[in-house]
């Protein structure tokens, strides 16, 4: 499991690294010894249910929260120790579009330029132009999708190496979600930057991301390339496990008639998944995620009537 090669190698090629990262809010553990490595140039989906710790992880990376233990590095810089330097390398899109109600879209770009020395307002303006978002429109009159696009344009305008997107799709309709993903993909591919996109909607990130990190109960349950996640897991009913496979978690299958179990195939850490690489059979990403989330939650609630 995971992309933990040698720590030094991972650090050298990773845009974002967390080592033993823990964060508590009073007695509630939000992050529990999280180890995560986001390779440079990748788009990583950070998936997990509400309260899994996704937002906390991103906030620690933004130096909004101080970790209780462990450390995190963004493009090789510890954001808590060297906040300015770290944030210069990060473009951030918050969960709820953060807009100044009285300001126009153009004012937002001007404000971003005044706050961030390297902000490329023309680049951000072009992105918004392409989407037909009027620059003279007041930000509080934008639709949810337009607001999210403004947030993304500001993040992209920083020309940062790392983009941290904290559930930007959560409040968008399907069409706006698709547009958002497309703009993000185009930008990341064109600039070669790295993105960590948190979401609890698996289908949204399935086509956009090349890497998957599943967070549940403050722990990283899975961290690997997307294809590997699909290839190395199988979903069957509990009575027919694939040979040598390890059960990950059980959950109600579609239709709610049957309890299904996600299995991790033997030899999954090596190439070729279960060793039978010809005509690989894959599992849907949603099932993989559900299996790991069920594992984190235990089997409670899975009893069928």
């Amino acid at each position: 499991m995971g992309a933990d090669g040698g720590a030094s190698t991972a650090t050298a090629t990773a845009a974002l690294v967390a080592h033993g990262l823990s964060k508590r809010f009073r007695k509630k553990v939000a992050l529990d010894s999280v180890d995560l490595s986001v390779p440079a140039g990748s788009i990583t989906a950070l998936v997990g249910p509400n309260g899994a710790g996704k937002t906390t992880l991103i906030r620690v990376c933004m130096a909004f929260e101080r970790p209780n233990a462990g450390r995190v590095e963004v493009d090789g810089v510890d954001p808590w120790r060297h906040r300015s330097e770290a944030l210069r390398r990060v473009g951030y899109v918050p969960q709820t579009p953060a807009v100044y109600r009285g300001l126009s879209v153009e004012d937002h770009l001007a404000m971003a330029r005044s706050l961030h020395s390297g902000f490329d307002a023309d680049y951000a303006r072009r992105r918004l132009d392409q989407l037909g978002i009027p620059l003279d429109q007041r930000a509080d009159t934008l639709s949810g999708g337009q607001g999210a696009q403004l947030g993304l344009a500001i993040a992209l305008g920083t020309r940062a190496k790392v983009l941290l997107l904290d559930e930007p799709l959560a409040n968008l309709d399907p069409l706006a979600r698709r547009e958002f993903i497309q703009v993000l993909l185009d930008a990341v591919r064109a600039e070669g930057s790295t993105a960590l996109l948190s979401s609890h909607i698996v289908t949204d990130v399935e086509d956009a991301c090349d890497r998957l990190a599943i967070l549940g109960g403050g722990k990283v349950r899975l961290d690997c390339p997307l294809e590997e996640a699909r290839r190395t897991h199988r979903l069957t009913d509990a009575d027919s496990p694939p040979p040598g496979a390890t059960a990950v978690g059980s959950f109600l299958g579609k239709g709610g008639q049957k309890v299904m179990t996600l299995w991790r195939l033997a030899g999954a850490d090596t190439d070729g998944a279960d060793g039978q690489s010809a005509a690989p059979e894959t599992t849907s990403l949603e099932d993989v995620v559900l299996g790991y989330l069920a594992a984190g939650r235990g089997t409670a609630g899975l009893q069928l009537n």
Partner: protein
Amino acid sequence: MVLCLGVAAAALVEAYRLGSVQFPAGCVTGGYSGPSFDPSAPPTPCNLASQRFSGIAWSFDMSLVRMFEQILPFIVGITFGAVLVAKEIEEGTAPLSWALAGSRRRWLLGKLLAVIVVIVPLLLIAGLAADVRQGAMVQGGSDSHASFDYYADRGVFFVLWGLAALCGTVALGAFTGRTMPALFVALIVCVFARGLWEQAWNQTVLRQFAVRADQGAERGDLSLYQTSELYLDGKLWVGDFDAWWQAHQTCTEVKPDPSIPASAGGMVCQPTTDATMPPMPATYVIHGDRYWQIVALESPVLLGGAIVFSGVALFWVGRRRPY
């Protein structure tokens, strides 16, 4: 901005009205007019002018202007200060701006300086207008920069109190992250701080600069405290006060007046013609001509307070969460 300029304009109008009262030659007393002018005074040109002057100096609109002069620096400071950080946190824009700015302290410093650049000239205009109005409160006009009358409500102190209120409220806003609580707490603190400051400052620092005024405080003096000992003709006087009075007054018996029901007789005493002022406590004052010296002493302290509050705000913004 409107409030500052409005109060400044109102103060100048009041000053103009006072200045436009034409006193005939030899009438100007150089003093204040009391709040109530004796209506039985003969209607001489001098008395009529004095009455008109009093009417303006103690009018409702003048007291309104004075009231605004007292509270304006705090209103401006608190209003701007409460929204500077707290509103960003409250409305969820702080994560965006802090992420873009990188250094939160630089972000706050930039905002704070922008506000200071706007409010300092406005407060200075209002403060100088208050100076002009205060100078006009004396018949014939006076130099308000050689007088301690209401000196903390005008001039440069107008700006300094505004800055202290601004920076203090910014610190409160950074701490609470909520606009209204910061605003209300700042209002309460300012009301108490102003009163306590004057008492503490006068009785500690300014006390050292006070000189004895045997004849009491004159116009424009800052009266600080009175001695417990009595002084007569500028010299310490020790003796029996009642005996002194007995020796310096003549008393005559007054019989009851039968035309007035329930009229009672008694003794009526008058000071003798050779009596000097009776022994009285000496007043320690700072004379008005030391105005600029005291301004130079007090200003850095108030400015220092504003800087300390800013430091607290900067420290706290650096530590706190943006939500």
